[in-house]
């Protein structure tokens, strides 16, 4: 199963212990994806309220739908500059 590709950055990659993972799922919303992700990487849970998400490289809200083949990114508070 292709699943949904999830990229993790910064502190979220640290917490998850990986920079990339795949969640086996069909078409779902980001909000529904989150528990599937934390099931595999429970240390991510406490970060929930600080995180933003992107779908295929653009910021997306919890009700955004993702399908197998899409790329979801888990984005901690940005700190560039």
């Amino acid at each position: 199963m292709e699943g949904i590709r999830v990229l993790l950055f910064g502190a979220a990659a640290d917490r998850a212990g990986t920079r990339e993972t795949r969640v086996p799922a069909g078409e779902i919303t980001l909000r529904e994806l989150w528990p599937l992700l934390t099931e595999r990487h429970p240390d991510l849970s406490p970060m929930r309220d600080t995180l933003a998400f992107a779908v295929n490289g653009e910021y997306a809200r919890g009700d955004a739908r993702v399908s197998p083949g899409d790329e979801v990114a888990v984005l901690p508070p940005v700190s560039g500059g």
Partner: protein
Amino acid sequence: MFAIVEEPIDVGALVSAAQRPDCGAISTFVGTTRVDESGGASVEYLEYEAYRPMAERKLEEIGAEIEERWDAREVRIVHRVGRVDPGEASVAIVVAAPRRGPAFEASRYAIERIKEMVPIWKREVWSDGYVWVGSQVGTREPVEE
């Protein structure tokens, strides 16, 4: 030109490339890594990472926002990733405009927008561990200030 790069930023070359006969001002902002100290430890260097394709696109968007708001003829933004040693440039913004007011305002706007929405993260590597800035996650014990 909007880029995420791994090598040191050549600020002089960026400024030269923005010189144009229709502009009377080039405003340059350079963000450099600062060494903080606390609890007897100090920052040894910073390490940046980016969600690269998205970060480059967001830098381009900032350029477009600037051109909508001000009469700026040339905007160049370069952000470095990887290890950046103390005092080195982590970001450079160059805005060329016919007049100095818009050049100053637009370069300030660019750095504020970068800090707000471009997917780049920095980790302070201290002599006794590291901390992700903004997330307060890392291997370093919190220090009582």
